[in-house]
């Protein structure tokens, strides 16, 4: 009885995840199918903003999946397909934007910030080490002066007693 219910629940769960595998495109090669999966995963749905076209149920995403499938079967390269999408919807559709003047800040920003942060850290650390090193090792002259000062204070203390 319990096993039966569990089975029903599991089936329901399994089916709910299968619902959004909506289209059933046939590919002439496995390589084409893989490219389709990668491309629809990396192309962003223009209407729904935060979904790729493979997840989205929006009609526009369906149209774009159809186009991707058509172009793959026509033997177009990945670059051709991406160019096709960008010509119509702009850089917006790329989840992995290309490097150009407009996206330079996006690509180089993090690298710049990390490099800047690391160099500041290095600079501060090196300066601290240098100042520590200076104070730790006294020259002979300084050693002699230190000894003299210590003796002086200790004799002053004994005088006070």
């Amino acid at each position: 009885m319990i096993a039966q219910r569990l089975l029903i629940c599991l089936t329901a769960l399994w089916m709910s995840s299968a619902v959004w595998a909506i289209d059933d495109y046939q590919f002439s090669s496995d390589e084409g199918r893989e490219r389709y999966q990668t491309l629809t995963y990396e192309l962003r749905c223009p209407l729904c903003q935060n979904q790729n076209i493979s997840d989205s149920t929006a009609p526009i995403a369906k149209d774009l999946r159809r186009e991707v499938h058509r172009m793959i079967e026509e033997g177009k390269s990945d670059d051709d397909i991406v160019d096709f999408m960008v010509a119509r919807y702009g850089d917006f559709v790329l989840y992995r934007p290309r490097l150009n003047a407009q996206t330079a800040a996006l690509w180089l920003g993090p690298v710049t910030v990390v490099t800047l942060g690391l160099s500041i850290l290095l600079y501060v650390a090196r300066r601290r080490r240098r100042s520590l090193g200076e104070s730790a090792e006294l020259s002979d002259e300084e050693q002699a002066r230190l000894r003299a000062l210590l003796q002086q204070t200790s004799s002053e203390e004994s005088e006070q007693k």
Partner: protein
Amino acid sequence: MKRLFLFVPLLAFVAVVILFNQNMDNDPSKLELARKDQPVPTFKLGELYNPGRELTPADLKGEPMLLNVWATWCPSCRVEHPYLLKLAKEYNVPIIGLNYKDDRDAAKKWLETLQDPYRFVIFDQEGRLGLDLGVYGAPETYVIDAAGVIRYRHVGVVNEKVWRETLAPMLRNLKMANANAVEEPGS
């Protein structure tokens, strides 16, 4: 010199505030028009009422006009419709309809009941022209100049505010530019 470094965090903060503030008006649901300043992509489609009449980009030339993407399945198009009628009837604005992924009979019935603001309607059942234009939702309204070049796109409902602040000045400028271009060779 060392003191100046203390201002680095403040400067960074100010820079971030300026950056964020600039992007406050940037609506992420509005896509940039990838086809800006490009001619209308090639198409060959029938007219809504008259499927035998073949329409091509050549039909979108001659004067600056609006190309309105609409469908009967689009609720905002119904909201926008009375204003398009006003533009066409009162201001005599040339508006071409692009019936996008729709049913021919439903579209015809819609225009019979709600009246027709369009000079003619391109019937794009497959959404091919829509896709080539970069349509991602309806309604969308494109501004096309006399040479058939796409100048601007408004996504969403066209209303009094959009017309007065954006579309009307743009059409006026394009009309003036066109008049000058036509006059020059003759003078």
